[in-house]
């Protein structure tokens, strides 16, 4: 695990992990909230009941765990890679989530959304071709 890989490989691994855990977290939250159902009202009693349901859902806890791993991977990659490199690269989540939503949760994906997915892929490829770190002094 103590891996002196090239910065490019390390960056790729951690950005991929961010995208995977971020997407998984969003899907878990989505599955959990769909199971719980729409929030019936905003009174304190109703919110208390909703919170109790939310925090007793396995999906929500899986989502929280996934999001913590997403945050850890993101912070680690930011210790060497440019923010302006990492931020657009993690937008690949906007590609993974509609794809998984479509194939796993049976959600409809419109033509406009597929067009957006294509543009994000192209944008991420372009950003990926630039150096991950432009501030290194050596």
């Amino acid at each position: 695990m103590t891996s002196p890989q090239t910065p490019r490989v390390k960056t790729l691994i951690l950005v991929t992990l961010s995208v995977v855990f971020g997407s998984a977290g969003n899907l878990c939250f989505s599955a959990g909230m769909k199971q719980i159902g729409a929030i019936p009202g905003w009174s304190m009693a109703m919110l208390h009941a909703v919170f109790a349901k939310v925090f007793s859902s396995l999906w929500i806890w899986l989502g929280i765990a996934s999001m913590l791993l997403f945050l850890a991977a993101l912070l680690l990659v930011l210790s060497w890679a440019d923010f302006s490199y990492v931020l657009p690269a993690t937008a690949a989540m906007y590609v993974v989530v509609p794809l998984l939503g479509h194939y796993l949760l049976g959600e409809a994906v419109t033509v406009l959304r597929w067009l957006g997915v294509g543009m994000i892929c192209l944008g991420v490829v372009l950003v990926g071709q630039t150096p991950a770190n432009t501030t290194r002094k050596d």
Partner: protein
Amino acid sequence: MRTAVALIILVLSGTGGDLSAAHAMRRIGEVKSFAPSAILRALGRAFREGWMWIGVAQMTLAFCSLLALLSWEAVSFVIPATALSYVTGALGGKYLLGERLTPRRWAGIGLVSVGVMLVCLG
């Protein structure tokens, strides 16, 4: 008017939070080992950096603005509008963190921003 103000707060404080966290991570230096103990040690050091907590405070403000916006406006307007963060993030990276943005990176950021808007509008 209140929507515009909340959107500006959301984009600026969200970007500011991310930039502050990025700055904190740069201050602790490159994490070279993926061993769990080394990762935990690095994250522990990061959360002892003042910049990290400034980032957390700004992210909290951004989250509150997001909730307020969602209570006033349709989600189909709010989320695509947050794609502006990719541009403000790039500008922050250039002017606050000293990153060098090539035309290719700008083109990629532009495509990602428009793509995110389309995904959210679709």
